[in-house]
């Protein structure tokens, strides 16, 4: 076989190789060690220890749908556990129409932590909101105007945990988990405007926009994709979905690099053949 053929391998060959290779780590986990990135360490440090006081109210924004569960949810799970264990109270909100599914999944993935907490006293689910950057800005000045009731229909004023929680001054920090722009909206309308402490949990693609903001101090920490989730799982000492996914990421990334090398060998051979 001529090496130049390596430049034009049928895509279906790669699909099958990837499909079969991805099954290997699920059947037999490899478990490569994971080092912690400084941005993830900062995120974890910011939601644990003396950075969180008992009774602090935090906002957790679900800015991702079912399709991004694999990337965002492990980190959201760890952050929820960490905040609950520090005695913080959490307001869950979401800008994705399937926010309720994500909230229900969180109840499963943090079941032990939710079991100790009382709805309405330790946490509350305000539900879905729309309105882009405007609604995030409005949330900063009057939360009840955006959510006159929680997701289950209880009026805002009747929820014990929300007594005295009116605007950004009553919120200790914001964790926004996103596939889109809402982290940016919270940064513009909360962090930049009022100095609210905030961190971002984004899909891997968002890393390139989130990391400069972490370096600049807008975000006190950033979790990037499944890798960020795996690092957080290692930090809290409870390995989960993201750690399992890391093996698949290792296999797929390695295969991709091998495919790129093969393609380039093919191109190089074609060039050299042409010169002859």
């Amino acid at each position, binding site marked *: 076989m001529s090496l130049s053929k390596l*430049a034009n*391998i049928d*895509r279906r060959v*790669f*699909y099958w190789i*990837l*499909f079969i290779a991805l099954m290997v780590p699920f059947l037999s986990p490899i478990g*490569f*060690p*994971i*080092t912690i990135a400084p941005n993830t360490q900062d995120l974890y440090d910011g939601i644990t220890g003396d950075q969180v006081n008992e009774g602090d109210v935090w906002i957790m924004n679900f800015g991702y*749908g*079912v*399709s*991004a*569960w*694999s990337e965002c949810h492990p980190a959201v799970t760890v952050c929820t556990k960490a905040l609950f264990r520090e005695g913080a109270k959490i307001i869950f909100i979401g800008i994705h129409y*399937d926010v*309720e*599914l994500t909230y229900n999944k969180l109840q499963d993935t943090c079941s032990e932590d939710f079991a100790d907490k009382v709805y309405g006293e330790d946490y509350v689910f305000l539900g879905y909101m*729309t*309105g*882009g950057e*405007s*609604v995030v*800005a*409005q949330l900063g*000045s*009057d939360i009840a*105007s*955006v959510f006159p009731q929680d*997701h*289950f*229909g209880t009026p805002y004023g009747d929820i014990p945990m929300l007594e005295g929680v009116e605007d950004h001054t009553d919120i200790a920090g914001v964790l926004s988990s996103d596939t889109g722009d809402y982290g940016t909206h919270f940064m513009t309308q909360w962090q930049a*405007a*009022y100095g609210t402490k905030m961190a971002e949990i984004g899909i891997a693609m968002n890393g*390139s*926009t989130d*990391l*400069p903001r972490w*370096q*600049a101090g807008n975000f006190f920490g950033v979790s990037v*994709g499944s*890798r960020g989730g795996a690092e957080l799982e290692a930090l809290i000492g409870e390995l989960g979905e993201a750690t399992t996914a*890391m093996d698949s*990421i*290792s*296999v*797929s*990334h*390695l*295969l*991709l*690099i091998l*495919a*790129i090398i*093969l*393609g*380039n060998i093919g*191109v190089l051979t074609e060039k050299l053949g042409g010169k002859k």
Partner: protein
Amino acid sequence: MSNVLKQEAVYAVTGIITILMILEYFFFAETQAWAETIRTWAVIIFNISLFLGAIRLIMAHSVRIQEKRRDWQFSGLLLVFFVIMLLTGIAGYIATGVQTNNGIYNWMFNYIYTPLGATLYPITGFYIFSAAYRAFRARNIDAALMLLAGCLVMLYNAPVGEAIWIGFKDLGYWVQFTGQVPGMRTLAIVGALGLIAFGFRALLGKERGFYAGGGE
């Protein structure tokens, strides 16, 4: 007169609201109740636009079905599911005050939407794999540099990179934080400056693209 109402009034309202919101953001963020009112209007308008979007969706797909255009069956399927989700959601809301408290609505969300949504995104991985194989070719120095940087970041992100050689961690970190982050900062700053320029042009009535697709 109608032209004035259709265009000039829109520009004037946009300009006035923009100035008010800029003043509020920079000088009176903690105090201005009127800004809260305007933002509430914005949220209401946004929600109305969702409703209009739904109407437009129904209209567009109804036309496709009527004219039996290519793949019109999918439009029919979309409308059927649209109606089912709408009606079951309303039924749940009327019965309990929460639209998701309906068995059919929940079943469709949990057993149709969730698996489909969870599958759709990972499938792109296969396409990315194939596309990267085809696109990442070192045909010149620039492409070779991009290829190298991409591979280093991949080996930094995947734990297998460190397992192969611990130096991949430092190299990938360097590429990401010394190479990519400053580039993204530059892009962000330039983009923000462009946005400010766009805002001023819109305020002065020189930028009219945001309204009905019109030019200057």
